[in-house]
């Protein structure tokens, strides 16, 4: 042994005397803001829930008739379609991606379902099934482009958005299938527009469908291995890969499920609009992203609860309805939505600071 070794190797000997409680978890005094930050970090859905409750109460005072069962249920009807699209969007955003094609897929699939039933005389359930399969197919295309061709999700879906929009015009001949035609030839397509009353509230099956989709997704994301993998991939894809998750396969399945949900939204949208129009829901794309962001799901992936976007969609609906009933110009609805987005992302950034 040379002198160097003996001098070096003893350098940690004093550690024996060091405090043995070193790794203990020390309770920190965080103060009110810190406690709030930790609380929100642990339960990310609470931000949109609080915002929703406050806005409902505020508009209840500010706008006449706002706080009626009828109006509140009307808001739910209005947000159902964007809400379902937001569910699809959430899945993709949880993996740190984004899907710009959701609305285009929905409109295209509604055209496919409508044309197959009305023009080609295919039995309506079969037409719906074909539509659902086509929807999953659009997701498969997005998913393969993202994983195999390694294109960023933004670019992939920017491209497929345009492609699906073009196909939508091709399949539809730019013609609308009118409500009366649907009533006689394919009433099943309008199923989710049918209303029923609970007390003073008027709900549609579309609202029930939206809630059901979110509940199912909540279960799948939180109680199955697949769901945990979706979060892990969004959190850190490389780490997920090294942990033994087949990330590409999971990503493709995420896009396919998103496509399927868009196709389900297509069916529901026919009921909501009453007709099949190739030019409907032009803004639903960005509205779905808005709902997801306001719902507290991080655009950087891996964070947020799936229930958030449903609440996010409701918040936008409440603002629009409340401002309208208060007699405020439509432009202020946009103005409010804009601030909501900025507020939501600012809160997200603040909560995420905890991890650094």
């Amino acid at each position, binding site marked *: *042994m*040379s002198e*160097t*070794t003996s001098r*070096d*190797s003893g*350098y*940690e000997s004093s*550690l024996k005397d*060091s405090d043995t409680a*070193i*790794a*203990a*978890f020390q309770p920190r005094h965080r103060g009110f803001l810190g406690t709030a930050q930790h609380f929100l*970090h642990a339960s990310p859905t609470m931000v949109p829930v609080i915002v929703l409750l406050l806005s409902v109460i505020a508009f209840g005072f500010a706008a006449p008739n706002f706080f009626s069962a009828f109006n509140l249920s009307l808001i739910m009807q209005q947000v159902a379609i964007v809400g379902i699209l937001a569910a699809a969007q959430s899945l993709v955003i949880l993996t740190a991606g984004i899907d710009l094609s959701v609305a285009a897929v929905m409109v295209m699939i509604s055209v496919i379902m409508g044309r197959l039933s009305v023009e080609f005389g295919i039995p309506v359930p079969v037409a719906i099934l074909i539509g659902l399969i086509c929807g999953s197919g659009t997701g498969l295309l997005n998913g393969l482009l993202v994983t195999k061709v390694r294109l960023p999700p933004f670019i992939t879906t920017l491209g497929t958005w345009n492609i699906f929009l073009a196909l939508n015009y091709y399949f539809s001949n730019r013609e609308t299938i009118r409500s009366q035609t649907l009533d006689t030839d394919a009433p099943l397509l309008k199923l989710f527009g049918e209303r029923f009353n609970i007390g003073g509230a008027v709900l549609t099956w579309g609202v029930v469908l939206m809630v059901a989709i979110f509940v199912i997704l909540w*279960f799948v994301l939180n*109680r*199955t*291995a*697949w769901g*945990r*993998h979706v*979060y*892990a991939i969004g*959190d*850190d894809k*490389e*780490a*997920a*890969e*090294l*942990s*033994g*998750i*087949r990330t590409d396969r999971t990503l493709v399945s995420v896009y396919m499920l998103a496509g399927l949900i868009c196709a389900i939204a297509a069916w529901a949208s026919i009921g909501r609009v009453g007709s099949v129009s190739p030019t409907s829901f032009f803004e639903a794309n960005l509205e779905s992203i808005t709902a997801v962001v306001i719902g507290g799901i991080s655009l950087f992936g*891996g*964070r947020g609860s799936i229930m958030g976007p449903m609440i996010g969609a409701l918040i936008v609906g409440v603002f629009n309805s409340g401002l309208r009933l208060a007699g405020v110009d439509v432009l202020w609805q946009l103005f409010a939505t804009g601030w909501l987005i900025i507020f939501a992302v600012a809160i997200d950034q603040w909560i995420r600071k*905890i*991890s650094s």
Partner: protein
Amino acid sequence: MSERQPVLSGRNIVKHYGRVTAIDHADFDLYPGEILAVIGDNGAGKSSMIKTLSGAVVPDEGEIRLNGEVVHFTSPIEAREAGIETVYQNLALSPALSIADNMFLGREIRKSGFAGKYLRMLDRKAMERIARDKLSELGLMTIQNIGQAVETLSGGQRQGVAVARAAAFGSKVIILDEPTAALGVKESRKVLELIQDVRSRGMPIVLISHNMPHVFEVADRIHVHRLGKRLCVIDPKLATMNDAVALMTGAKKPETSMMAA
């Protein structure tokens, strides 16, 4: 000694990246129950070589044997299934997921019966119980809540979770890539104790490290990697840290007096 069969061995491993030769006919041997340290200067190719053993890199040439059987890993998943667990330098943990979720990432336990089979529901209680057991076994139960997110843990605790995960599931070999590089003195100490604890249970460990005191403290043999291949294997009791540094930087030629048996 020569009749001892290595648990994990590599022969003539070659890997090119374009025109760069990262691994140049390298050999590697890990024997049962030992801690083998792998040292080498930056760019010597030790990480690349270790990645061929853990399945993250597929070698162009050469042969890898696990318990005498030739294996061909094309992904880390295959190496894991064969019983080789790797703790990567970046730990491969998902910060937002809980400790239990992380320990079982990629090998979750499902409930039995209908809920597990058809609803594919996870058995959270079982996973949390096993995770807690594994952590206590390694003396890591200073972690309060098994359901807390990994990002709320300190660096040492995260490392502990990653090592515990490897120790819990690795059946043949554990590879640790720079486990103390990002840690403070006290946390490093904990992790080194953890490593020795794992070895004492008979698990062979490959330890890649730049930290000479740590290497000389825990390693049974030291594999010196230089210019893409194994230069020599030295015995930490016969060589000094100075020798080791001189060997890996090329300042000194290997001498038989410091060779490991």
